[in-house]
């Protein structure tokens, strides 16, 4: 969660304030959508939550840890163990096969390559990719690649999963399939899932939707008001 987070980029005349005192909450066991127009600060906010950017001010707490205060090995350890990522462009490594890609976070943590691959294979099997373990990203469809990316995001059991436009590069069917997987596998009691999206076709998967505009959180819609929003 964040309290009064501010962040600017640039200097002098080109300085632009992207976040203007963001108050944001995401609950463990829920899938929280972060929506809003381009440039409203969504990506900056999740970059700060995942300890990849440092805010200029305000408080950030992720499962009791203040990532802003972390430096060096503690910071990389926080990213390594606490956060999992799913990206719009998948960002798979083209030289690694599906199982190796999914195993990367475990290898980063020092797990042996063989054991990591075995765990990745098991998870990919749960995601319906058991027959594609040896395939390289270029040999997989966009939907399959995103499922590999989801496996990579979850393999090391992170408590926070950050998804940046996970369906933007997928057709409607693949997009829904990916969201179903995220909803059924990623969301757990002790894990928070934050999804940045423009895709209103998938809003029904959200437990809570936070709307941003001009660097601020302007509204949070709870499940009860979700249908109303969709109609609007």
């Amino acid at each position, binding site marked *: 969660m964040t309290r009064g987070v501010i962040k600017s980029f640039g200097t002098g005349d080109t300085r632009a304030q992207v976040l203007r005192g963001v108050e944001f909450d995401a609950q463990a066991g829920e899938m929280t959508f972060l929506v809003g127009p381009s440039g409203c600060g969504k990506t900056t906010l999740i970059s700060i939550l995942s300890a990849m950017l440092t805010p200029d001010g305000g408080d950030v707490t992720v499962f009791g840890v203040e990532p802003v205060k972390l430096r060096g090995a503690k910071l990389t350890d926080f990213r390594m*163990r606490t956060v999992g990522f799913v990206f719009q462009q998948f*960002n798979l490594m083209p030289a690694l096969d599906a199982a190796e890609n999914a195993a990367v976070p475990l290898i980063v943590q020092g797990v042996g390559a063989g054991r990591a691959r075995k765990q990745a294979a098991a998870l990919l099997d749960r995601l319906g990719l058991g027959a594609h373990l040896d395939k390289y990203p270029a040999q997989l469809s966009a939907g399959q690649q995103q499922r590999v990316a989801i496996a990579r995001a979850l393999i090391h059991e992170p408590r926070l999963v950050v998804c940046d436009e996970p369906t933007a590069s997928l057709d409607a069917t693949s997009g829904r399939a990916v969201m179903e997987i995220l909803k059924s596998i990623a969301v757990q009691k002790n894990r928070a899932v934050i999804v940045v999206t423009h895709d209103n076709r998938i809003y029904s998967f959200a437990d809570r939707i936070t709307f941003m505009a001009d660097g601020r959180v302007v509204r949070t819609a709870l499940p009860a008001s979700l249908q109303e929003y969709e109609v609007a």
Partner: protein
Amino acid sequence: MLGIALKMLFGDPVKLAGLLLGIAFSTLLMAQQGGFFIGLISRSANIVMEAQDVDVWVMDPKTETAEAPTPMRDVELYRVRGVEGVASAAPFVQATATLRTAERRSATAGFLGIDDGTLLGINPRFVVGTPEDLRRPDAIAIDQLGFARLWPGEPLKPGKVLEVNDRRAVVVAITEALPGFAVPVVVYTRLSQALAYAPGGRNRLSFVLVQTAPGADPAEVARRISSQTGLQAHTSRALQRKTIDYVIANTGIAPSFGVVIALGAVVGVLVTGLTFTLFVNDNLRQFAVLKAVGVSGWRILGMVMTQAIVVAFIGYAFGLWGASAFFDAVDRPLSDLKGFWLPWQVAALVAGATVAIVLLASVTAIRRVLALDPAVVFRS
């Protein structure tokens, strides 16, 4: 993580080929030119290197190189013989003369006149005949490359007759002697013959070749000869070094080879640097993903350095193989480049240069990786 780094490297065969080509070409050029340079300047000392059983070379104080000795008086031979530690001393004459065949072919040759009695200073490697054959009238021993130049296509055999300064010479033996720096053909003959083939002034003695007494230190004997006779005296190794240093200092060979070798290094840095930077640029997003999932900047630096070192090693191996193949191909008995080789010191220096090239070429890439913002992964 290193396994991932290598998979990234080998997963991009086009750039890998570009990197290997740049390093291999650079290595090949540096090693080939380095070996060529060593081979060329070593030729000036071949006359010393080839002489068997000689411990100390004595010469006029003004002599600067073994290939162009200043003549001494014959009496110097006897003065040297009187120095303590000298077991035996023999005269040695070096001269240049033109060989002419009955077929009107000619070649300039270095005539090495060895002591009629002891034959001290002769090259021991005879392909045809023996050193003893030189005791026959008008006898000369020619190197096989010289033979092939004068009688191309003919089998190596004795009995060929030559004319040298209006005198008759008969090839009685053929040696494996290596060519000199100034003269490509090497002829051994008795001292008395050499003086006749290459007439000159009254003082004709080029060197006094010394065999030291058992247990005597050649360097110490050389110092003693110098101090007692006023002549210049060096061990064989010291004279080789002095001769090579003279060639390096007094010819444009070192700078011209140096320029080519430097160009090889510069091309290596440019090609490798450009390709490696492109390679890392293309992989920046992957490195950013790794940073995002908790890989430290130093570990990523280690991955990049691993890629660079592996590329350097393979490229160096290819380049060195090419250079070795070149020297293996040219070091043939009848090749003009006979005696050229790739010394291990050159290979070691080129290895060091290759590592330096790759490190230099990696600087830009490393800077980009270290400055990489992991948040770039969120940009599409």
